[in-house]
Every structure is written in structure tokens, then in C-alpha cells.
């Protein structure tokens, strides 16, 4: 790939505390983020997302390992000397300054001339559609407006990399959807590398060029949203993003043998087979190549119906069937049916 690497972490370890009480917030994380990319760090609470962001920004020093920006080692540089800006989860707007002064803060600190500062501030406020609020104090703004100001303030000095720590989590659902679109637009327009932190998998899937899934201080998988969803590398990634079924299997040539004896084609390797509920079709029990199962329960969700099924060896499987299709198969509790996996949908993964 000819793309430049904007941010790199090399074998980064970060421990807090000493001895027995020490917490390993980051455990040997290595990562490369391309220039101009919308990169998302996704993971459950406490997995180390904020810690990684703070290492990139320079608020914390790694216990070991290096941080590189544009290929230069910045591990020892303080935050005010890194071409990186942060949109904080709490926004951290300056309460004693107006919206315009907040946005112009970084430029003023850099000693830029007033006309230049004013000009940039006006452009940034236009970018986030906050021109009319320039002279307001930040305490008089709504959450969404504060969020825009925080964004404009971080973008004003034109950083090489923008770090965003769950910037949308304080907003209500509607505003959140709007801001997701807005953020994506801003990222395209400015061409700045975004490193975005969230624990919302849907947000990650819809916005990112690539996603890094984290768990317990470790980077589990880095890939495009589609790859993460269709080809997770382990049980954690598969279960954290979307719903899925896990079945213990014995790998065979080009596939795997289920506990009930059926053999299915599956890519990847490992002792567990995963298949998304929507990739399973329920057929009559005597259909060709169908895996026999018994219907345990079904739950109606409007567009879909979830069928809870049991295989002959007792393993449970959930299938998600579009509701109109349900009428034709006509399943009832206790009925014996057949299951067909969509081609290329089943994957073998590590534990």
C-alpha cells in the first residue's frame, strides 16, 4: 500500500499502579493507522480504548513500546508539541471564553496573528454550522452544540490526527445519528485522520474505514467493518459485533463436522464454527443437505422472527428469518425442520 502511516503504536504496554494492584490497561498493542483514514477503536468498557488514545495524545507515557506520528517517534513529546488534537468525551470547553475564543484557542497559543485566527475561527464555525453562536459563552449551549464547538476547536489548528473519545455518547439517539453523518462529512472534507473511540458497534460499523476491536487491553482484530462482521478471528470479536451462533466442531478438509454428525463447508480454522442468525434458512426437514433440528421457540420482532432451534446433539442455534418467509415454512413449537447455512457464511474461529 502506498498510503502513509499517520499513527503507529509499537508493542505498547501501559500499566497503572505497582506490584499486585497493578492494572495492565494496554497489553502489547501494535497498530498502524493510515493517513486520511477514519479508524475506530471498539470495545467494551474498561478495555483500554481511552488509555490508547491518551498515549497517542501524549497525556500518558507508555510503560514500554513506542508511539509514532508520521513515522517520527513521539513517545517522549508532551501533548502541546504533538500535531494531534482531542475531542474529549466531556468536551472540556473553556467556560470563561466565548465559542469563538474557544475555537481560536489553539491558534492563539501558537502565536498566530489575529486576522489569521479570526479567519480560521469563522471557517471552522461555518464547517460545524455554529456561526450564529460565535459570541456566546459555552455554558449557554446545548449538548449537541457543545459537541460541535469541541470539534471545531480541535480541528482549527489543522492537526494531522484527530482523536475522538466517545464524542457522541452524551447525545440522544436522533442527534447522535445526525452527528454521525456530520462527523463522516467533516472527515471527508478535511482529509484529517480520525481515531474514533466508541463502544457502540453499530456506530463503528457505519462510520469507519477500519475498526480495531479491543478487549482486556489487547487488540483482537483490525479490519474493515465488513471483514470484522463476516470474518471475525475469534469468539470475542464475533460475539461483540452483532449476534451470532457458536458450535463446537471437528475441523475436516475444507469444513467441519458438527456434533450431530453433519458436515458443513467453512473457511478459516479453529475448533469453533460461527454463523450469523440471518445466514440460516429454515427448510422442511427432508430438504437436500439440510441439518435436522427441532423448533424450541420463536420470537416475533416485526420484520424478522427469531427461531430458537435445537440440533440432534442438543446444541442450540438461533435463526433469523424475514417474517414474510415464516408463513410458508409454517414452523410450530416442537416441529422438526431442516437448517441450511448460506454459502461461505460459516467460519471457523479460535476460542
Amino acid at each position, binding site marked *: 500500500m502506498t498510503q502513509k502511516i499517520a499513527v503507529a503504536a509499537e508493542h505498547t504496554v501501559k500499566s497503572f499502579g505497582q506490584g499486585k494492584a497493578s492494572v495492565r490497561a494496554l497489553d502489547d498493542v501494535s497498530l498502524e493507522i493510515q493517513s486520511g483514514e477514519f479508524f475506530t477503536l471498539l470495545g467494551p468498557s474498561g478495555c483500554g480504548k481511552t488509555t490508547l488514545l491518551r498515549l497517542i*495524545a501524549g*497525556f500518558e507515557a507508555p510503560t514500554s513500546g513506542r508511539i509514532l506520528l508520521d513515522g517520527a517517534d513521539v513517545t517522549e513529546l*508532551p*501533548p*502541546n*508539541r504533538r500535531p*494531534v*488534537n*482531542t475531542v*474529549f468525551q*466531556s468536551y*472540556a*470547553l*473553556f*467556560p*470563561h471564553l466565548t465559542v469563538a475564543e474557544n475555537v481560536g*484557542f*489553539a491558534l*492563539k*497559543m*501558537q502565536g498566530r496573528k489575529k486576522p489569521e485566527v479570526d479567519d480560521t475561527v469563522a471557517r471552522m464555525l461555518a464547517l460545524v454550522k455554529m456561526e450564529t453562536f460565535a459570541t456566546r*459563552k459555552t*455554558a449557554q449551549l446545548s449538548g449537541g452544540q457543545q459537541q460541535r464547538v469541541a470539534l471545531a*476547536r*480541535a480541528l482549527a*489548528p489543522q492537526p494531522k490526527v484527530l482523536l475522538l473519545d466517545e464524542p457522541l455518547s452524551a447525545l440522544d439517539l436522533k442527534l447522535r445519528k445526525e452527528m454521525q453523518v456530520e462527523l463522516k462529512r467533516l472527515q471527508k472534507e478535511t482529509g484529517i485522520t480520525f481515531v474514533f473511540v466508541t463502544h457502540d458497534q453499530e456506530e463503528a460499523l457505519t462510520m469507519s474505514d477500519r475498526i480495531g476491536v479491543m478487549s482486556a487491553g489487547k487488540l483482537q482484530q483490525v479490519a474493515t467493518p465488513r471483514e470484522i462482521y463476516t470474518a471475525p478471528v475469534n469468539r470475542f470479536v464475533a460475539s461483540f459485533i452483532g449476534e451470532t451462533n457458536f458450535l463446537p466442531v471437528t475441523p475436516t478438509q475444507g469444513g467441519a463436522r458438527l456434533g450431530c454428525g453433519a458436515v458443513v463447508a467453512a473457511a478459516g480454522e479453529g475448533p469453533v464454527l460461527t454463523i450469523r442468525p440471518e445466514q440460516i434458512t429454515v427448510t422442511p426437514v427432508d430438504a437436500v443437505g439440510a441439518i435436522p433440528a427441532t423448533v424450541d421457540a420463536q420470537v416475533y420482532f416485526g420484520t424478522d422472527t427469531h427461531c430458537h432451534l435445537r440440533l440432534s446433539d442438543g446444541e442450540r442455534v438461533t435463526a433469523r428469518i424475514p417474517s414474510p418467509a415464516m408463513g410458508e415454512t409454517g414452523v410450530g413449537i416442537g416441529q422438526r425442520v431442516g437448517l441450511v447455512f448460506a454459502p461461505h457464511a460459516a467460519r471457523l474461529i479460535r476460542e
Partner: protein
Amino acid sequence: MSRAEDAMTRTATRNGWLLSTPALILLTLAAAGPLLIVLVYSFLEKGQYGNVEWAFSWDGWVGILFTRDIFDGTLGLADAHLTIFWRSVKLSLMTTAITFALGFPTAWFIATRPAAERGMWLFLITIPFWTNLLIRTFAINEVLRSEGLLNTVLISLGLIDAPLQIMYTDRAVLIGMAYVYLPLMVLPLYAAIERFDMRLLEAAYDLYASRMQVLRHVILPIVKPGIVAGSILVFVPSLGAYVTPRVLGGGKNMMIGNFIELQFGQGRNWPLGAALSMTLLVVVMVALLFYVRAANRGSNTNG
């Protein structure tokens, strides 16, 4: 609200006022009475052996800035008075500056301790307050005098040969006042810093501010109400300080407080003493007004 209810609340209010009338009268008399006496005295003639003659005179007020020549009776600017005023203002401003320079890091230190520890630190800061002012001042005397703690230590360390003459200088007064009034600076500063959102430091640091810029453009403007409060709380009593300059400054290095006392004592010029007191009061009131306005502005912007 119905008319009956309206009338009832009005009656209740009137009754409330009626009931508190005795207290109000007492308060007014106790607060305004003595002031009124001082005000009246400042416009009377001075008596031969102190006290006042009951005759109207501007002499007390004129005497603040001018003295009458003993021989030809012409008025001339009273240099000695101006020196005392100037010293009072200068020492008070310097005391304020010193307590701020010492108090800000102290308050910052306390405010950034774990919440459970802060109470103990604040208690330590206020301990001197539980001690009598005179005793504290004599303790300083004990440290500063020629054979005192400071000189003994410095000489035994070989840093100086002869004892430093600190006692009975402006410097001694300054040290004493800074020591006595430090808690008055620390407490309001602490209150302001404790409310300060430390995440703003990281935000400023992230936006290319150096440490000095963070201090100047973020911390100081936001804790300004605390700075103003602390400064007024130190400046006002410093300006009227009496015990400290008396004990540590000796008789010569007077401040306004000592000067006023002198008029009611050996000076036997009660009207001048009264006029000086009123002047001091006005200066303090102006300072307080300034404070209230600054504090309001602070709370408006930060609210």
C-alpha cells in the same frame, strides 16, 4: 392569588417586620452608632488634653494631608503623613502579593490531594488562627530578632557573619503580616481551585498551550473570583493592621492603624484620629465594592 391570601401575606410580612424591629434597632444602633460618633468627632475641635471641644471645625479633615506651621500658621503638605499612608498601602499590597505567591501553590497542592486528605491540610493551614494574634506576632519576633532562630541558624551555618537586622524594619512587618494573613488567601483560593475542572488542563495542553500559557489563559482567569476574594481579605486587614507593625516595626515604622492610635493617645488629636478612621473606612468600602463587582462578573461568566 386571591385578595384574601394577598392581604394575609401582607399582614404576615408586616408582622415579620414588626417582630424583628427590636433586633433591627439594636443592630442599627450598635453598627451605625459608634460610626456616627466617630464621624461627629471628626468635625469637632481637638481638646487640650485629648478629647474634643464641642465646636465645629474642619481641622481634623484638613490635618489628614496638611500640617500648620508652628511659627506662621500657614498650611503645608504633611510629608510624614503621606509617608505613613504610602507605607501602609505599599506594605498591604506587598503582603497581598506575597500571600498570593505563597498561597496559590499551597491552595493548588491542597485542592489536588485526594478528597479525604484535604480536610487535614485545610485544618493545618488554619491552626495559627486558633492562636492569639499577639502571641503569633511575638513568635515571629522570636524568629527574626538578632539573637533569634533565623540569625542563629544562619550564623551557625556560616552563611552570614553578623546577625541580620530584620526586626523593626518594613521587612519584619511584611514577614509578620504575610504570615498572619496567609490563611485568608489560601482558603478562598482553595475554594476556587477545588471547583476548577482539571480536565481543562489537558484540553489546553492538547491545544498547544505551554505550562505558562495554561496558567495564564486557563487557570488564572477561571479561579479569578478566588484570587479577588483572597486579595481583598488580605489587603483590607493589612491596611488597618495595628498589632503586627507595632510589635515588629517598632515605634517608628508606623502604619495607618498605629497612626490613628497615636492620635487618640499621645497625639491628643481625636478629630484627626476620627477623620483618619473614616478615611480608612471609605478606602476599605471602595475595595469591597470593587470585590463584589468583580465576584459577580466572575460568577456570571462561569455560571
